[in-house]
């Protein structure tokens, strides 16, 4: 394996992390997290790749034909599932946070900070209200 996939993966992770560190909008931040995750896709696929081999499907190839590593592809598939779950969950949280705080800016949605307006009026949520929201 050449050094290129490593470099691309490191670059993607760094860029994504930079995006998260400087983001002022939660939707943008979720996108940056996706960029970080694509670093893992590139790394795993690059590690499993073999030059001049087929995809690991032997339907129309004789067994024994050189193929790329199927374990890595399984890892990437699982990774994609994880990514979809995380993105969906984060977007749900973002939508709910926007409903309650009226903002998508991390600066305005800090947990446990003084000086936020509308803290008291909005948050009377108890078990019963949580149940309503969870449905």
């Amino acid at each position, binding site marked *: 394996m050449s050094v290129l996939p490593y470099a691309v993966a490191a670059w993607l992770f760094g860029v994504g*992390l930079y995006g998260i560190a400087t983001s002022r909008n939660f939707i943008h931040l979720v996108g940056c997290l996706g960029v970080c995750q694509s670093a893992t896709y590139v790394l795993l696929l690059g590690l499993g790749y073999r030059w001049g081999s087929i995809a690991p499907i032997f339907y129309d190839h004789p067994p024994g034909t050189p193929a790329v590593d199927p374990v890595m592809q399984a890892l990437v598939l699982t990774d994609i599932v994880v990514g979809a779950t995380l993105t969906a969950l984060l977007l749900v949280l973002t939508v709910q946070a926007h409903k309650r705080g009226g903002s998508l800016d991390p600066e305005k949605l800090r947990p446990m900070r003084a000086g936020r307006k509308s803290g008291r009026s909005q948050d009377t949520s108890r078990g019963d209200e949580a149940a309503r929201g969870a449905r």
Partner: protein
Amino acid sequence: MTAFPALLLPLPVAIPLVVCAVILTTAHLLPGRLPDILAIGAAVSVAVLCAVIARYAAQGPIVYWFGGWEPHDGVYLGIGFSVDEASGWIAAFIGMLYALTFVFAWGFFDRTHGHFHILMLLFLAAMVGFSFTRDMFNLFVWFEVMSVAAFALTAYHLAESSLAGAINFTVVNSLAGFLMLGGIGLIYAQAGTLDFEGIAAAVARGGRDPVVAGAFCLVAAALMIKGAIVPFQFWLADAHAVAPSPVSVIFSGSMVSLGLFGLAKVSAVVFAGSAQVQQALPILLIGLGSFTALLGGWMALLQRHLKRMLAFSTISHAGIMLAGIGALTAGGTGGMLVYVVGHGLVKGALFMIAGILLATQASIDEIALRGLGRGIWPAGIAMALAGLLLSGLPLGALDQGTRLVQGALSQQGHGIALAATAVGAALTGAAVLRAAGRIFLGLGPDPGDEAGAPSEDEREKANRPLWLMLAPCCALLALDVAIPPELIAHALPRAAAAFMHQPAAGALVEGPAWLPWASVAAGLAGAGYGLFRNRLPKIVVQPVSATQSAPTRALEFLHSGLIGDYAAWLAVGVAGIAAVLAMV
């Protein structure tokens, strides 16, 4: 053919998952409290099964290969569970903690349709799987299942601050997942297998290899993020403070320490053959652990939001556990394993007390609660006892773990780390004792205008009887005190050696006997200083406030609650680990 005890291994993971699916499909049909009963039953059966497995595993690790895919000629194709005695007992402890938490949460949520129980059971299955597995990728899967359940549980109230806390928690821990997956990819590329033993053999053959070091760097960073080690600790205080109290019990009691448990297992089993990693481990773990113990303790002392205070106390104790692992001896790792159980019991009880205050007094702010706890004085006794145990009172499992960790550190001459474990424990104990004195005895100055809390108006469901909430809390504390120390001292050398895949060691060394008393005394003194500062002569108070105000403000500034800052610190931390690995 798989023999009898091995057949039990999948059950503690399968039972909660099946019960979880049953509750999910029949939630709308089930009458009132049936999900509670089902969940308690599932957790108890997990605890009992894991204890049985642990008893059998005393003779040697039990291995189960899913689908009968056993390894042949050193080629590992299947995925296996492998349980040594220590992992089995840790899983049994987790099951028991869940059972008591379900009792504590009885009636906590009206009309939940079982969602709370479903997420909690998923969380439980993931934790047991995480401690049983012997496959790197399987470890990652349980890590992620654990994370996703935890994210959803943190945001369960859907209030503004719990959402913000959950988002910070989700982003940081997702990054941890990505790092871990990257590390697993690297180690697979080098070893060609994902099985712990297979990787260990390949690593031992390979010699010094930057890919192995890189893989370790990424996996260790991921597990330290879960374990809330400085500089990855920021998410914990946000998440634990805003999660519903029963969830905080599980977070602090088992999730954080399980991250460190995973780190201990991976560094002792998988990377045992890499001299580079083994040389870097003491510097990394003892250095970061000592620093974390001090910083967490100090931050705990600064908090007035009770759950946030307990969250920082958890960070401090995670640091002590990490220092124990860093000793790289059976004493250090064995002490850390006992510490996980003892700390989980005590910290779980403390979060339950915080939940009781939220439910009965409708506040979580130490200053606003001054004197309001008199009506529920039994909770005050429990809180004072828990505070003393946290600061190092020589009694019970937490103390035994502390003394073993301190023994391992002093044996190797890590004087500073030894002091850090004692000071960290004293600081968190001081914070808890100060709060207990203020809330239940009404000590300290009258707050006046200060009573308005900076945090939100919080409240948890109030119509549960006090005894129902107090009973599981007292059961946790009683367990911590009642576990017979001789039993642990007898079984631990063997269990720790099996956990680390090393030949059995002799009796384990304990630290100096005066040290726990010193840290209890320091804890009481710190609590007294916090409560009676205004009555002390100026000559005592002035130097303290003059020296501590600048670093305190700097620390408060660092814990900004901004996810961007957390991501930046995460990058710094990973770079730091990589630098240490590169230098040895």
